[in-house]
């Protein structure tokens, strides 16, 4: 197997001595993959996400991002250039109220010349479907637009991995759809690897792979059809199984259907039509 985009081995973390916020977490994300990390509040998913970006010191275990050791102080900037992060609250991640300035912030920090940073910012804004937004005021944008600006701010530095930490939980459904479409487009055009931390099961159902976190541990990992169809597993992890799965199991109990549960609406349609 070739080099992994993200490779975590035996990661443990305790914010306070004695607590176990992450327990022996191992995770592989292949280049180009979209992996959803799901779990209830406090399950450790945000802690794991921040480790991938070297934002908190690694206490135990090993994490590599495209071969870069996140615990090596000399590689911190290389890690952050390789792996970008979009946060939950759009308001708390802007350094400038002018879109173009904010998006150029990353490239400038990573040493790009002013002109190159501008060009990278323009390209990144176009990639998230906001071409020509350079001079707009971030405070005048919708939540979905703000999160796409935040995504562009990360893209402008040319990362190979993007981590989205609950990036849709504070925006409306239209904003969520816009952000999801922008991420799909970026993956298609740039082949970027995406790690999406969420408790939105409809979103997780569209991932290549789903990782379920429970009390600091990886409770399950696998294809959405396998993981999300397991109602007992998800409920045990404090999550709500996708509506389609719950409806399917109702039908199954009534003897109307058989076989593995579909996890998306499209899956349900083809299962019932077939």
């Amino acid at each position, binding site marked *: 197997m070739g080099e992994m985009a993200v490779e975590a081995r035996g990661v443990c973390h305790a914010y306070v001595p004695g607590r176990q916020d992450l327990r022996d977490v191992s995770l592989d994300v292949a280049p180009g993959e979209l992996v959803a990390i799901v779990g209830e509040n406090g399950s450790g998913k945000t802690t794991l996400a921040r480790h991938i970006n070297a*934002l908190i010191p690694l206490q135990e275990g090993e994490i590599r991002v495209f071969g870069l050791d996140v615990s090596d102080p000399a590689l911190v900037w290389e890690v*952050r250039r390789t792996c970008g992060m979009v946060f939950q609250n759009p308001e708390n991640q802007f350094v400038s*109220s*002018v879109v*173009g300035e904010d998006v150029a912030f990353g490239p400038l920090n990573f040493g790009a010349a002013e002109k190159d940073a501008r060009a990278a910012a323009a390209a990144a804004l176009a990639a998230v479907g906001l071409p020509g937004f*350079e001079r707009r005021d971030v*405070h005048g944008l919708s939540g979905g637009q703000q999160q796409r600006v935040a995504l562009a701010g990360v893209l402008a530095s040319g990362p190979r991995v993007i981590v989205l930490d609950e990036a849709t939980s504070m925006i409306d459904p239209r904003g969520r759809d816009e952000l999801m479409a922008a991420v799909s487009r970026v993956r298609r055009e740039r082949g970027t690897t995406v790690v999406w931390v969420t408790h939105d099961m409809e979103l997780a159902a569209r991932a290549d792979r789903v990782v379920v976190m429970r009390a600091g541990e990886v409770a399950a990992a696998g294809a959405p059809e396998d993981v999300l169809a397991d109602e007992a597993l998800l409920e045990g992890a404090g999550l709500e199984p996708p509506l389609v799965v719950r409806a399917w199991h109702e039908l199954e109990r009534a003897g109307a259907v058989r076989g593995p549960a579909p996890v998306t609406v499209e899956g349900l349609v083809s299962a019932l039509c077939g």
Partner: protein
Amino acid sequence: MRGVSGYVWADSPLHRMGAGAKLAGLVACVALVVLASSPLELLLVCALVAALVALSRVGWRSAARSAWGLRWFLLAVLVMNAFFFGAEDPVISVGPAHLTVAGAAQGVRVVVRTLLVVVLGTLLTATTRPQELIDGVRALLRPLARVGFPAEAAALAVGVTVQFVPTLLRESRQLMRAQTIRCGTVVSHAIMRRAVSYMRLLVPIFVSAIRRADELSVAMEARGYRLPPSRRAADGGEREMHA
């Protein structure tokens, strides 16, 4: 809502000028405003500020925006001065209030000075990105770092404050409403209670400001921001690239 940082995207000599130089220039201009006392001197400073606005290419509207926001306050200052400055040679007297020419002149002077300072401040933020402003403050504070002053933290604080002022203002307005409702009182009848609750607003606003600053600092770090000492240590070539 418009950000208080208020940067106006344009290219002008003022935009290109270093933030440290602009901050020093702002201090010098404010000193001129304070020192100018005769109408002629004030007029000259007005002309200077007008020239700076023209030079900045941010547009008269943008330059005047903050001043316009203060219109009622300035009007009140003018009226207070005109009526309560002195009692000699009143034009009209109404009870304790005496409208005097000297008072009116003083009122105009105070208003003009305030306006000039506000426009100069607006001009600084309109031509300087928050990031440059932080760097400028840092450059000006650097000499103080030798005597143990936390110049880096102070520069960062300036940046964070500039960025969060509009959000915090909105939040505090909402907090006031929330507390009024929780106390179950009619707004206009609760002036005393509101005075007390202003104190109670400080805790949540403080907590919120710290939380926001914390989240922003993580977000900035994730996008490669670093304080200059480590920046120089990590790669020395970057400064040259900026220059």
